[in-house]
Structure formats: C-alpha cells, structure tokens
C-alpha cells in the first residue's frame, strides 16, 4: 500500500504511466525471482529513451552508448534492492542521470561533439526545418547541420543541472514532478532551473529565433 501511494504521488501528472509502471513492476518481480531474460523486455522498452537522455546531456553518441549500457547493467545488478516505492521508469532514469552527471564531472575538461544525424522523417522536425529555411538540397542539409551544432553548443553551455532539467522536460517530456523525483529535488527547483535554462538558451539561439 505504501508503494502504491508513493507511485501515485510520483505519477500524479501522468495517469497513463500508472499502467505502464504496474507492468514494469510485474517484470521486475520476475527478474527478482530469477528470470533474467525478463530484464531484456525492460531494456527493449527503455533503451531509446535512456540513450536519448544521456545523448542530449553529453552531445556524444559513443559516450552515450557506453553510459546507457552501464545504466542498464547497474539496474540489473541492483534489481533486488528495488522495492517498488517509485516506478521502475523513475528508478532507471535516476541511475542513468546519476551515471551521466558523474561522467560529465569527471570529464569536465574533455568535451567534444559526436552528433547523430537529424532524421527528417519525423514530422515535427520536418515542419520546423521547413519553417526555418526555404533552401533545398545541399544548402538545407548544411543549414540543419549548423543549427544542430549551434543547438548542442548552447546546451553544453548550460550547467549540468540545468541541462538535465531541459533534457528531461523539453526533449523527453517528463513532468515537473517526475523530474523532481529523478533529480531528487523539489518541484520549485525544477521550475526555477527550467526557467533560467530557457533564458540562457534564448540568448544563445537568438539569431534563429528572429527568422
């Protein structure tokens, strides 16, 4: 009962995730009972989102791949300590974010971009690129590449906490409550960090906003 109350508190902003969390909890119970293969379902379910968070925090796809794998392995090794007081999704995100923050703090002086290509088959990104430019062909690809670098550059100028908040809220779509659970801070802190980070990004990306 206590676990379900905590789960409700965590997922108050997104009730559809309660079903998702219950399904995850069933899988976790199987893994805890000794069914190691059941953990593959959790990997398949969350690998893209975990990789997306880490990639947008590091702006390096090789580091992101390693860190995502390490996060899943840590979750697998510690699965017996998971008691269900939070959702598995929040728990896994917290492991991934903490691993990434530790990695970023260790390699503060060594940071270089290794960017994935923007997939224009996504309707949102296609519409955005169309709104930003009237170019086609090589010129369009160059513009998108330049915008992508500028965007990642602006993200890396943020502090780790601000970058994490922006990533979890704007890119991954988590609610303030969920971000507060993942980052182990208050909702007010999340909102404050998000506001400040958006102000900084707006200043950095001003040339693209005027178009």
């Amino acid at each position, binding site marked *: 009962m206590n676990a379900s109350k905590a789960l409700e508190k965590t997922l108050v902003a997104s009730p559809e995730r309660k079903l998702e969390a219950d399904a995850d909890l069933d899988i976790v119970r199987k893994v805890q009972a000794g069914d*190691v293969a059941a*953990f593959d379902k959790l*990997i398949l379910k969350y*690998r*893209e989102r975990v*990789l*997306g968070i880490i*990639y*947008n925090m590091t702006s390096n*796809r090789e580091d992101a*791949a390693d860190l*995502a*794998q*390490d996060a*899943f*392995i840590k979750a*697998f*090794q510690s699965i017996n300590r998971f008691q269900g007081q939070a959702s598995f999704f929040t728990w896994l995100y917290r492991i991934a974010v903490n691993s990434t923050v530790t990695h970023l703090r260790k390699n503060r002086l060594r940071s270089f971009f290794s*960017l*994935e*290509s*923007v*997939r*224009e088959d*996504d309707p*949102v*990104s296609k519409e*955005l*690129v*169309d*709104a*930003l*430019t*009237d170019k086609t062909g090589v010129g369009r690809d160059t513009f998108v590449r330049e*915008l*992508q670098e500028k*965007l*990642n550059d602006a*993200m890396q100028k943020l502090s780790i906490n601000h970058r994490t908040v*922006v990533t979890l809220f*704007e*890119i991954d779509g988590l609610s303030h409550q969920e971000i507060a659970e993942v980052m182990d801070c208050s909702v007010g802190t999340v909102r404050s960090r998000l506001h400040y980070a*958006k102000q900084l*990004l*707006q200043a950095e*990306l001003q040339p*693209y*906003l005027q*178009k």
Partner: protein
Amino acid sequence: MKQDTERKITVEDLIRLKRAERPPAEFWATFEAEIRSKQLSAIVNKRPWWHGLARASAIVSRYQLPFGAAAAVALTWAGVHYYSASPSRVIPVAAVRSEAKVVVSAPVAAAQLAVAPVVERTVRTREETEVGIQEAAPVHEAVVTATASHLSKAPSDIPYDAIAKSPFGDGIAVSLADYREPAADPSRRSVFGTDRDFEPSIAVSRQAPSDPLARMDPAEERRSRLLAPALPAYASGSRSSLAGDWMKARASSDERMYESMDRGSSDRMLVGFRF
C-alpha cells in the same frame, strides 16, 4: 516555404529538434550485443568487496552532520567530566602552604635518578610524585630544605647501608644526615606566611640600634618627645619604624649637644676672648 508559414519559432521548438537526433537502426544491434555481454559478465563476476564499502560510505555520508554533532557533544562531556574530576588529585595550594609540602620538580626528579641504581627507586612522573608526596606526607613529616634555586625533599626512606656501598656513598650519607637533622627551620613559617607575620619576626630578630646617647636624663627625653612630632618620620603612623627611630635619635643628639654647650657657657664654663 518560410513565407508560407506564419508560425513563430520559439526556443522550445528548437530544443525539440533534438528529439530527431536518433541513431540508425543498425546501432541497436551493436548496442544489444554489447549490453548482453556486459550483462553476462555482471552475472558471472561478483562485485568486488570495496563496492560495498563505497556504498556504506555513501550511506554514512548522509549522516555526517548528526555524527559530527554527537562526537562534539561526547568530546565536550568527556572534557568537562575529566577537568571536574581531576582537581581531587592535585594538591591544593593552601594545603601546601600550611603543611609545607613541596612539589618535586622535574630537575629534582632527574637528580634522584643518580641515586636510583643504588636504592632501586623508580622515578615517577611529576603527577605521580605529587600524589605520592600527598599520600606520604603524614608519615615522613615532610623534611624540607631550601636550596639556592629550588626546594627538594630528602629521601628519608633510604637506608644508610645501601648508600655506603656506592662510590659516592660518603658524600650522599653526609648530605642525608644533614637533610635528616631535625634542625629548626626559622624561615619555615616566614616563607609561606603573610607579610604581617613576616614583619614582626624580622623586627624581633633584628638588634636594636646601639645609641651612644641612650642614657639621657628625663628632661632631655621629654624634650625629644615633644620635638618628635615635628620630624617627618613621626607622620608615618603610631608604630615607630626603624627609620623613624634613627632620625629621632639623631635629632635628639644634636639638640643635646647644643644644649650642653649653652649650659656649659652659662653655668660653669666662662670663655672669654680678649684681643
């Protein structure tokens, strides 16, 4: 196209562009193979023991403030308890004054080391010596001798035979005999007494000044007594000090000399000068 769309671009729109940064499909095959091998190695290989220590230290680090506060309270309590209990072992200064107990200092203890091989006496620390003297004081009557630089306590429990066997036995025996001699110690009370006690004892022991004009007739004594208040030494108080007595005697002797000259000239002696 830009002209066709009237939509305003915001920061949120630009950030959402990052959602489209995804790895290609073949990346996931490599990812899955790598994570499976890591998973298998995690199953086979046990975690090293220091991982448990790291986790324990992380748990302890949460309670650093309570642990620190508890340690500070415990240290404070221990300090207060120690310093409140320790004065019972220290000789009070008043007791030292009244019973003339002497604290043996470090140089004296070092001097006793020379006797140690002979009498097989262990040299104790200063604190132990204080306690020992306090306990042994009623038994040994605390023979105290003042030297030029410090006070020392004679080892009264040393037998003479043991000292005579040593190369310096004669000298030590003589010194011990001097120490053990129950001679009167006139300075015993004066040294540790108050100034009020000290002053009369010095005044008594001091000899009265021998005045050749001490034999004065009553008239001269009366005259000197009347003239005495005029002297500056009289104003110091009712108790006549040594300097006051001396100045008063000198003044009276001068007056007596002048008076005798006057008396001689008027009564019996006639001195005439004729030119």
